[in-house]
C-alpha cells in the first residue's frame, strides 16, 4: 500500500489548511472609529415605536432617541421638565396643562407642537383614530385615566383625567409616554417601529436584523450636544458571549453582566457600575387557604428564609435585601424605618408552634427565568431548603415564564401556597395598587394572586393615588409599608442592583434608578 504517498497528501492538505487559517485569522483589530460607542444589549429590540413596546431592553434604545413631556431627573425617580417647560395641575387633580418648549423639530424636520402631543396620545387611546390600527399598544392602560387631550395653543396642551391620578406625571416619563413624529407615523404606518423618528439626542440611522441598531448624534438637540457621534446597540443574547466580546474589546460597554462573571472585570481595564432600581423580588403567599392563611405562618416564612445568603451567595452581591413591598429606589416614598425581617429560624419555629399547624406541606411555584426574575431556580431551591429547615415540607413545581404567568396571574387558589414574582415599576403606586389591594384580586382583574386583603391598606392606597401633594403621598405610602410588612402577604426577598461594565475608554457613564440607559453625555476616548 502506498502509505507514504497518502500521508504526503494529508500533509500537503493540512499545511494548506493551516496556512489558510493563519491568513484569515490575523489578530483582530477593532476598526471601530473612536467616536462610536458600541453597547452590548441582551436581545434584539422588538420595535422602536415607544407606544408598542414593553421590554426594558427596548427602552434602553428608545430613551436615547425620543423625549417625553417630562423625564426622570438624573439619578432619581423624580420627574423634571423635558419637552414640556412647565405644567399646572388643577386643584381637583384632574386637569394637567403643559406649556411646551418651542422651536423643537423631530428628526424628520417636522415641527414638535401641541398637535403632535395630542396625536400621540389619541393614537394609543382613541379606537377611532386613523392610526390606532398601527398598534397594538399593550401599555396604553398607563394612560387609561386620560379622558381627553386638548390643544390649547401651538405650545400648550391640556390633559383631562376621569379621576385624580397621582402617578400620571411619572407615567408620562415612562417610555410609553415618549413623543413620536406624527408625520413619520402617517408615512410608515405599522412599519414606524422600523423607521423611528423622535426628538431625542440621537436619531435613527439603521437597523440590521440581529446585528445592530445604529443611531447618530442629533446636532440640533435642544438639551445640548451628545458625547458620541454614533452609538451601536448590538444584541448579544448569550451572557457568556457578551462577556467574551467585552473582554476582547468587541464592545465598549455591556448591561446585565451575569453575576458569576463580575470578577473577570476587576482591575484597571474596566469599571463596573451598579444601581439599585425600582425592583422587588418576592414570594406571593396564598393568604386565602392552607398554612399561609395564618399571619403567624407568613411571618414565620419571612424569618425562616436566609435572605442574606441568597443575596450574597446566589446573586453574588447583585441585589440588596428587601425590607418591604416598596423598593428603596423610590426614595421619596420609602419608609426608612423599615428593617428587613432578620434571618431567625428559632423565631420561625416558635411562630409555627404557636400557629399549631396540622399540615406543613407547601406547593411552591418556581419559574425557569423571566423579566426581573434574576436566578429563580437557584433562589427557589435555597428558599425550599430554608423552609424545610424549620419544619415545612416544600414541593417545587417549575414552569417556563410564559406558562408560569398563565398559572400565577389568575390566582394561586387550589393550586399552590406560594410563588416567585418580581416587578419593576416606575411609581410607588403601581405594584401595591395592582397586587396588594382587595380590589386587585385576580377575579377583579388585578395581580393580587395571594388574595391579601386589609381595608386599611386599600384605603391608604386609594388616598395616595388621588393626592397630588408628594409629601402627603409619601406619608401614606410609608404607613402602607409598615402595615404590609407586619401582615406579611409576601416574603420580601431582594431588590435587584442592575449592573453594567464599561471599558476604561468610556467616561461619564452612570446607571439610572429607572433602569433606563441614558447615553447622551457618555464620551468615549
Amino acid at each position, binding site marked *: 500500500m*502506498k502509505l507514504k504517498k497518502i500521508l504526503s497528501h494529508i500533509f500537503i492538505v493540512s499545511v494548506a489548511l493551516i496556512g489558510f487559517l493563519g491568513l484569515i485569522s490575523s489578530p483582530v483589530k477593532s476598526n471601530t472609529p473612536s467616536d462610536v460607542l458600541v453597547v452590548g444589549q441582551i436581545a434584539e429590540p*422588538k420595535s422602536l415605536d415607544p407606544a408598542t413596546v414593553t421590554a426594558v431592553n427596548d427602552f434602553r434604545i428608545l430613551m436615547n432617541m425620543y423625549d417625553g413631556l417630562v423625564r426622570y431627573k438624573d439619578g432619581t425617580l423624580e420627574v423634571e421638565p423635558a419637552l414640556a417647560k412647565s405644567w399646572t395641575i388643577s386643584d381637583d387633580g384632574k386637569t394637567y396643562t403643559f406649556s411646551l418648549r418651542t422651536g423643537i423639530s423631530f428628526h424628520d424636520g417636522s415641527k414638535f407642537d401641541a398637535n403632535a402631543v395630542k396625536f400621540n396620545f389619541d393614537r394609543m387611546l382613541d379606537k377611532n383614530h386613523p392610526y390606532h390600527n398601527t398598534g397594538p399598544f399593550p401599555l396604553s392602560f398607563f394612560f387609561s385615566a386620560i379622558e381627553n387631550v386638548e390643544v390649547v395653543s401651538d405650545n400648550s396642551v391640556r390633559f383631562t383625567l376621569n379621576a385624580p391620578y397621582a402617578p400620571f406625571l411619572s407615567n408620562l416619563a415612562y417610555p410609553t409616554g415618549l413623543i413620536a413624529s406624527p408625520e413619520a407615523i402617517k408615512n410608515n404606518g*405599522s412599519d414606524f*417601529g422600523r423607521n423611528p423618528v423622535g426628538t431625542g439626542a440621537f436619531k435613527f440611522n439603521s437597523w440590521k436584523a440581529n446585528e*445592530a441598531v445604529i443611531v447618530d448624534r442629533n446636532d440640533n438637540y435642544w438639551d445640548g450636544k451628545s458625547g458620541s457621534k454614533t452609538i451601536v446597540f448590538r444584541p448579544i443574547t*448569550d451572557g457568556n*458571549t457578551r462577556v467574551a466580546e467585552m473582554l476582547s474589546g468587541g464592545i465598549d460597554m455591556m448591561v446585565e453582566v451575569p453575576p458569576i462573571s463580575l470578577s473577570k472585570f476587576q482591575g484597571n481595564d474596566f469599571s463596573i457600575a451598579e444601581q439599585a432600581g425600582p425592583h422587588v423580588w418576592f414570594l406571593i403567599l396564598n393568604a386565602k387557604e392552607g398554612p399561609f392563611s395564618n399571619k403567624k405562618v407568613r411571618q414565620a416564612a419571612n424569618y425562616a428564609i436566609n435572605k442574606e445568603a441568597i443575596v450574597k451567595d446566589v446573586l453574588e452581591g447583585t441585589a440588596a435585601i428587601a425590607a418591604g413591598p416598596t423598593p428603596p429606589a423610590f426614595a421619596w416614598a420609602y419608609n426608612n424605618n423599615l428593617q428587613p425581617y432578620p434571618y431567625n429560624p428559632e423565631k420561625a419555629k416558635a411562630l409555627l408552634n404557636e400557629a399549631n399547624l396540622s399540615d406543613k406541606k407547601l406547593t411552591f411555584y418556581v419559574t425557569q427565568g423571566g423579566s426581573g426574575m434574576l436566578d429563580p431556580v437557584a433562589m427557589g431551591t435555597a428558599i425550599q431548603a430554608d423552609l424545610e429547615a424549620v419544619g415545612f415540607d416544600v414541593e417545587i413545581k417549575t414552569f417556563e415564564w*410564559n406558562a408560569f404567568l398563565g398559572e400565577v396571574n389568575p390566582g394561586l387558589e387550589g393550586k399552590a401556597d406560594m410563588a416567585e414574582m418580581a416587578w*419593576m415599576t416606575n411609581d410607588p403606586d403601581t405594584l401595591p395598587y395592582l397586587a396588594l389591594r382587595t380590589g386587585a384580586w385576580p377575579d377583579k382583574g388585578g*395581580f393580587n394572586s395571594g388574595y391579601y386583603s386589609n381595608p386599611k391598606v386599600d384605603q391608604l392606597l386609594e388616598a395616595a393615588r388621588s393626592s397630588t401633594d408628594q409629601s402627603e403621598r409619601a406619608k401614606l405610602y410609608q404607613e402602607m409599608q409598615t402595615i404590609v410588612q407586619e401582615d406579611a402577604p409576601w416574603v420580601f426577598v431582594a431588590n435587584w442592583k442592575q449592573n453594567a461594565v464599561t471599558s476604561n475608554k468610556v467616561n461619564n457613564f452612570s446607571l439610572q434608578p429607572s433602569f433606563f440607559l441614558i447615553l447622551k453625555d457618555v464620551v468615549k476616548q
Partner: protein
Amino acid sequence: MFYYLFKRILYAVPVLLGVTFAVFLIISLIPGDPATAILGSYATPENIENLNRQLGLDKPFFQRYLKWVVNILQGDFGTSYSLNRPVIDEVVERFQATLILSGSSFLICSIIGIFFGIISSALQYSFFDKIITFSVILGISIPSFFLGMMMILLFTVELKLLPASGMYSLYGGGDLIDLLKHLIMPSTALAIVSTGVVVRLSRSIMLEILRLDFIRTARSKGLKEYRVIFIHAFRLAIVSILPILGLQAGFVLSGAVYIEIVFQWPGVGRMLVDSILTRDIMLVQGGVLFVALCYVIFNIVVDFLQLILDPRIREE
C-alpha cells in the same frame, strides 16, 4: 426520470403541510399565549383578552390553521404578533445568514468527513486509523454549544484571533475575508458532530466495498492503490454516503439554532427560539416552513444525485 423527480416534488407538499400542522398544533397546545408574552408582568386577564381579540387569537384552532394555509397559498405569510411586522420580511432578512452558516458546516462535514472516512478505511487498524477513530468519538461526544463557548474563550478571549459574535464587522469589514473570520468558529462548532458521523459511516461503507471482488480484480490488474480507492471503491461508496449527507443537512440546519445563539449569528435560529417563547405562531410557522422547505429540497437533490450516480436505481 423526470416522472420520478415530479413525484418526489409532489410528495413534498404533504410533508410540509404535516410539519406546519404539527408545529401549529404544538404551539397552540402548550400553555401561554402571545398576549401574556407581550404584556409581561402587566398581563391581567382583561388585558390578555383584549389583546388576544386584537390579534385574532380568539378564533378556534382549525379556523386559524386553515386561514394560515389559505393565506400561504396566496403568498401571504402573515404578521408577527410580537414584532408587528410581516413574517416574510423577518424570515428573508435572516435566512441568508442561516444558509451561509449551515451550508459551510455542511461542506466541512461532507468534505472532511468523507476524506478522513476513506483514509481511515484504506489504512484500517493503522496508527492513523486509530487517531481518526479516537477524534471521531471525541467530536461526536462534545455538545456543540459547549465546544462553541470553549472556542470563544480560547480564540477570542485568550488569543484575540477571531471575533466572538456576529457575521460581519460593523466598521471596515463586509468582505469575504471578514465573513470567513466570523464564520470559522460557528461553522466548525456546528460541523463537528456531523463530521464525526460522516467519517464513521463512510469508513464502514468503504470497508465493506474494499472486500468486494471487483476491488480484488482491480488490485490484481496492478492498478495503483489510490486509483483503486479513490476511483473504483469511492464511486460505489458515494451512492451509499449521499443519503447520510442528506440526513446531516437536516442536522446542521437544526443545530444552527443553538450555535446561532452562542455566536449571535444573525440567522433564523434565534428568531425561532424567541418566537416560540413568545408563542408567536405566525413567526414560528414562517421559520419552520423555510427550514423544512430547505430540508425537503436538499433531500430531493440528494435522491436525484443518487439517481444519476447509480444506474441500478435508474433502472428501477
